[in-house]
């Protein structure tokens, strides 16, 4: 069950959680020396499928659209399709993004301004760089994969950039497929410790890749996340906590 999580081409549908499963969102606090992260733990209360096809404007060969939000009125126009209601602070969206056609590349920022990266570069990745993208080969339109895995929460944001690497003008489409969760926020430190320790199963999700930057969470979450540094984790593995 755990193996697909390490497969970049694992279908996102195989990674969607079901009711009563635990997950944790991992946010960065200090990724340079102290290696400290803040984790928010949840248990899935309800699940419902999430699906949408988002049609982008026609792009000429090589044309790049820089980072912006997916708007109801088009790229960067109208309401953000991922905008979440203030009344639902414990709603989490968990999805992959399939890309059509295959040679359209997609870069993400989450939160906006911070490009999702797995690399370690002094200069942050820009839209169009030869790194940190997924395309329709890695995350096909009909079968979005782990490579495009994204979560959204109230106060979160996600921006996309796209480039057409097909030889002709195309009208790209993004297939957003996953689930929305109503979740219980687990604010009990001893339970959280057990999940970090591996005693209680939990799906850990790195939010926004290995970016370092600021993030915001709903007021209702504030003070209910837990910070873990190397010494905390060492202590837990050693048997403490």
């Amino acid at each position, binding site marked *: 069950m755990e193996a697909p999580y390490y497969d970049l081409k694992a279908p996102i549908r195989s990674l969607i959680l079901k009711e009563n499963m635990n997950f944790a969102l991992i946010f960065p606090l200090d990724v340079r020396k102290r290696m400290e992260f803040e984790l928010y733990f949840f248990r899935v209360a309800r699940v419902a499928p999430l699906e949408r096809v988002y049609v982008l404007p026609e792009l*000429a*060969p*090589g044309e790049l659209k820089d980072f912006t939000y997916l708007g109801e009125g088009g790229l960067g126009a109208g309401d953000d399709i991922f905008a979440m209601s203030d009344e639902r602070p414990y709603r989490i969206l968990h999805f992959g993004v399939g890309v059509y056609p*295959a*040679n359209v590349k997609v870069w993400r920022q989450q939160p906006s301004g911070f490009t999702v990266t797995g690399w370690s570069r002094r200069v942050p990745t820009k839209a169009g760089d030869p790194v940190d993208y997924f395309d329709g080969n890695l995350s096909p339109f009909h079968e979005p994969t782990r490579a495009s895995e994204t979560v959204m929460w109230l106060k979160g944001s996600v921006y996309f950039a796209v480039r057409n690497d*097909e*030889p*002709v*003008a195309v009208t790209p489409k993004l297939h957003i497929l996953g689930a929305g969760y109503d979740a219980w926020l687990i604010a009990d430190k001893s339970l959280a410790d057990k999940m970090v320790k591996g005693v209680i199963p939990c799906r850990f999700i790195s939010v926004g890749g290995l970016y370092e930057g600021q993030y915001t969470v709903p007021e209702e979450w504030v003070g209910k996340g837990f910070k873990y540094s190397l010494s905390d984790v060492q202590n837990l593995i050693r048997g403490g906590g």
Partner: protein
Amino acid sequence: MVEFNIFASVGTTEVDLAPHPRGSPTVASDKRRKIYAMVLSNTATGANTLTLRIYSGATLEASFSIHLPSPGAYSVVGRKEEPILIVPPGRTLKAIASAASVEVLMAGFDE
């Protein structure tokens, strides 16, 4: 991967053969352009010759002339797995005819 068509009306002035819509006659540096079907219609009153040319920048690297004996349509149909013409990375595909004109339809893809 998107398959595409190339449409061109080729006369006595050399023209680019570019994928439709809005494609470039020059193949991307990491791709090869594979043409697997071609339909030619000679609209001139007599015999005609269509010459396909492959350039690297301004340098002519290869050309191939097809004699079209009289008004009429001619087709060469291969399969995607067995293309009839491959344009290497970074090369540009062009065509010229000895008389006006030859209507050209190609089917292909880049990979």
